[in-house]
């Protein structure tokens, strides 16, 4: 683990794998350190944000000494099922990039046992991992200025559903009617870190 400078009120910890990042974030949250304001895990890093004036040297030492489980963080609940109409504008491109047929892309996407690694990008946006490695595709060269709410996409090792209409660079497989984010719901986010997710194909 490497601790990188990130100003005077945060430390960015860099680790080797996504699972390490998720596990480290869970360990930092569980430690309930009084100076820590928020913890932001991402693909290879964990950002630990502190209150102003915190002793960052002490924080680095404390975090480096935390016991971190190497087991993937999973919640033992039934998978959340998300119904998808596979009519995305990038289906053909995903098929040609992966060397699969469109039907195979759909079969592999619905056949994968996805898991929420972390949230980010926008409220309720959950980065899903543990998909079939054949589905790894790059982001689009030109991000779309508007991806509609409910769009289901792929990028790198991740799949995700856009909770609301935003700009976005992911390759789009289809769309869902599921409400990923509702501020008036408790909890507002449909998916939380550790949740398991299955995509189910439905007709339009």
């Amino acid at each position, binding site marked *: 683990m490497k601790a990188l400078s*990130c100003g005077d009120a945060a430390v960015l910890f860099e680790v080797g794998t996504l699972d390490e990042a998720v596990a480290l974030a869970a360990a930092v*949250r569980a430690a309930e350190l009084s100076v820590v304001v928020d913890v932001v895990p991402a*693909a290879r890093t964990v950002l630990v944000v502190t209150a102003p004036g915190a002793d960052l040297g002490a924080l680095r030492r404390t975090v480096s000494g935390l016991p971190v489980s190497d087991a993937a963080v999973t919640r033992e609940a039934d998978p959340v099922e998300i119904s998808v109409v596979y009519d995305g504008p990038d289906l053909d491109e995903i098929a040609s990039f992966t060397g699969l047929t469109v039907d195979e892309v759909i079969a592999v996407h619905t056949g994968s046992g996805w898991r929420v690694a972390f949230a980010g990008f*926008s409220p309720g946006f959950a980065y899903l991992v543990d998909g079939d490695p054949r589905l790894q595709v790059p982001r689009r060269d030109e991000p779309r200025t508007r991806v509609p709410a409910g769009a289901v996409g792929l990028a790198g090792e991740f799949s995700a559903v856009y909770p609301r209409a935003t700009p976005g660079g992911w390759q789009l497989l289809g769309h869902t009617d599921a409400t990923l984010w509702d501020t008036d719901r408790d909890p507002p986010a449909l998916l939380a870190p550790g949740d398991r997710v299955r995509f189910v194909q439905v007709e339009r």
Partner: protein
Amino acid sequence: MSLTVLATGPRALLQDAGRVGLASIGVGRSGAADRAAWALGNRLVANPPDAASVEVLLGGLRVRAERNLTVALTGAPAQAVVDGKPMGHNALIPLRAGAELALGTPDRGLRTYLAVRGGIVVDPVLGSRSTDTLSGIGPPPLEDGVLLPVGLTPADHPPADVAPVRLPEAGPAVLRFVPGPRDRRLTAPDVPVTTTWTASDRSDRIGLRLTGKPLHRTDDAELPSEGLVRGAIQLPPGGEPVLFLADHPLTGGYPVVGVVRDADVDRAAQVRPGQPVRFRQT
């Protein structure tokens, strides 16, 4: 209902300390862009420290008190008049029921805070009354004619009538920063410091966009997205940096080459379009 917004000016939002610790559901902090000015307003009117105020962009706000109120203005020094009579900033302003407070355009700084004794008490969303302009969470931007509820008068009495404060800079804003986490991505690490940047008119609560001689990166490979802090100086492919402010995204995929010191980010939030910005390494 206690305060009527007669005119919002270019943009007026409610802001408080923001939403703390919600990254796990993808929600950023948001909150007052100039936290020091917002906090001073609450101290002047003896509000609880997390009370919501009106954040006014480039003046132009007009409000009417619907009952006797005490308010204070902090941040950008927009000339204030109450029923035609000039009023000072960083001081208690009594508003009798029916009185109108109007703000002109500040000659320096960008954001003025109107703190009302009792605080603005619209329904909080996820624990805060801040409008997050990136995610759309929180109360909608204020509109002409809206009625704002003011909370109960706090038990504490205002500690002073007036507070001495430093005005926002009119000339170059010099911001102290710490290099990293990705400063090795710069071909010439001293260029951010030797360049005088100009604040772009595309700046907003998400980030202060800077124009100037573009910086060069050692490689164009994208990073896996990583967490961003308020104050992060991010370098997009075009080479002109973005300094992230209150409504910054939680994560980003372009390298962050330095982070402005927490105490200086408030001043960055007062930089006007066209104003020069320099960075000083600490």
